[in-house]
């Protein structure tokens, strides 16, 4: 039995929007084991983005506990959360979120930049990962010179550069045409085969189906949690 990497224990998140209190998550509990490939699905407004922000340590739960790799991160201060994000998480966004002024290789290096690793080492790791996503011939290009699929591959390389515990992907194929989307999904499959833990937020059933487990959310509750 593999150990739990992500443990959500009755997590609630409420937002204060002026006088109105919005309950985005109303007590969510689940476990994700190492090496799992999980998709989180649901209609818009169901709390997917909130859940993703909590999973990504970009936000803290209002109540409940979140253990990442056995460490309780729900009460950590801002600096510790930054350190956790930099060291243990990999982010892939719908809109790629590459920094436009930096080259491909520099974008891949960003997470290492904040870990105070020696520069030569950063460069070497970034090179290796660029080669892995098939972009070793585009290292000096700026993001706007690349196609959407290529940009997303840069983002994947960036998400892998710190060897994270969990890779979080938010609609990774949402901005791509179907053939680029398929390419990206193939990379995800490969990563899964290599034993990476993947959490993928999507509302595309075709994408969701490729994961081995699907968590469906509705109105801040887990509606279903099934293995495909």
């Amino acid at each position, binding site marked *: 039995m593999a150990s739990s990497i992500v443990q959500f224990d009755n997590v609630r998140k409420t937002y204060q929007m002026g006088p109105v209190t919005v309950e985005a998550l109303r007590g969510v509990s689940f476990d994700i084991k190492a090496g799992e490939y999980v998709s989180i699905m649901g209609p818009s407004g169901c709390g997917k983005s909130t859940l993703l922000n909590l999973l990504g340590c970009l936000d803290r739960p209002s109540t409940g506990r979140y253990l990442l790799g056995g460490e309780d991160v729900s009460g950590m201060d801002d600096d510790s959360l*930054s350190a956790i994000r930099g060291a243990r998480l990999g982010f892939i966004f719908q809109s790629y979120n590459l920094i436009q002024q930096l080259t491909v290789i520099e974008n891949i290096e960003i997470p290492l930049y904040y870990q105070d690793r020696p520069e030569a080492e950063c460069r070497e790791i970034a090179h290796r990962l660029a080669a892995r996503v098939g972009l070793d011939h585009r290292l000096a290009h700026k993001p706007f010179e690349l196609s959407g699929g290529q940009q997303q591959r840069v983002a994947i390389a960036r998400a892998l550069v710190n060897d994270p515990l969990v890779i979080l992907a938010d609609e990774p194929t949402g901005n791509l045409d179907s053939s680029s989307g398929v390419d990206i999904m193939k990379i995800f499959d490969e990563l899964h085969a290599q034993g990476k833990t993947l959490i993928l937020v999507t509302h595309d059933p075709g994408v969701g189906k490729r994961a081995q487990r699907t968590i469906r959310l509705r109105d801040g509750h887990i509606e279903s949690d099934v293995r495909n």
Partner: protein
Amino acid sequence: MSETKVQSGLRKFLHELTLAQLQRAMRLGFRSLWQHRLRSLLTVLGIVFGVCSVIAMLAIGEGASYEAQEQIKSLGSQNIIIRSVKPPDDQKASQGSQSYVLQYGVTYTDADQIQATIPGVMVTLPVRDIHDYVWNISRRVDCDIVGTVPWYTSMRNYRVARGRFFTENDMAARSSVCVLGAEMVPSLFPLESPLGKHVRVGGDYYQVIGVMETRGHDATPADATASKDKPAAFRMFVPLETIKMRYGEILMRRRSGSFEAERVQLHELTVKVDSLDKVTTVAEAIKTVMEHNHKKKDYQIDVPLEMLRRAERTKQIFNIVLGSIAAISLLVGGIGIMNIMLASVTERTREIGIRRALGARRRDIVTQFLIETVMLSGIGGIMGVLLGVTIPFVVSHFAGMRTIITLWSPLLAFTISGLVGVVFGIYPAIRAANMDPVEALRHE
């Protein structure tokens, strides 16, 4: 955010910032500034002109006051100078109806009284000043003939370059010797040494026994405050007794259609006081003596020491005014930088969100933006220093003004411009760091 929290935060991150990180952050900052070259340049112009004007104005001011102070110092700070002044016109007219001879000015009696009665007076230096042509065969020079005493050189800090000054013996013998000012020598003796030669004034011949050193400016008190571009007057020094004998006491001046006679005993009397702190009291005493002896105000008392003090006070005020102008221009420059940095933070919200998501701590973001601002103002400071050091050279080259760049003025200006970067960079940087990463990532 409270002041102490900012301070402790700043101290914390300065401690934790390693050199390698700083280098990297600077490279990153430089690239980001280079990406918006024009914007960076325009942003920094305020600082550039602020720094440059401070340095240039200080250099010009320093030069001007140095020159004024040198002129005053050359009069001798222990000296008090009493000069004869032609009384105002209305009094002359009423007198002129009875007599052709206009009598005014400092007298030998004044000199004797001052020397004898006022304690602290070391020595007095009478000067008689006659305007005439000096000839060497067919060469002519319009010249001030100064009749004075042998200790003139030591009291006026004015040295003989070649030959010698006249002595007590020359005075006693009323010998016809003269010492030429260096400026007139090329006009009178262009090819030969003047020493031992004779010059003619009117019908009398004088033997040249010495030549004074060159003096950039004319050391009269009027000159220290008035026109400086007038070339140094030609002067020839002759023993006082000789002048008295040759010219008598009445000076005739013929002008077209009119004729004027003046009786002036001494044109100038310099009093040397034995110590600096007695200068003011002696000056007061001299004033009393002169007021008693002269009904009209036909003299003027100049105290170089007081002029020097006044010049120093003026310079102080000048520096304060300049400092305020500099402070205001740097403040304006700083506000300009802060404005642009705030805009830049908003424009780069997304980048901030990405960096935060990928592990940047708040203080990493603060460092990034603060370094950018400090580099911006630092580069502005360097440009300003370069420009500010150039301008005084150009000014002294083309306008012929003396300028002095003191070492501290570029250093101070540069340091302040760096500080401006820190002060005006802190707020935008903290604002960038305090953004919510989730919001920032969603920002379009």
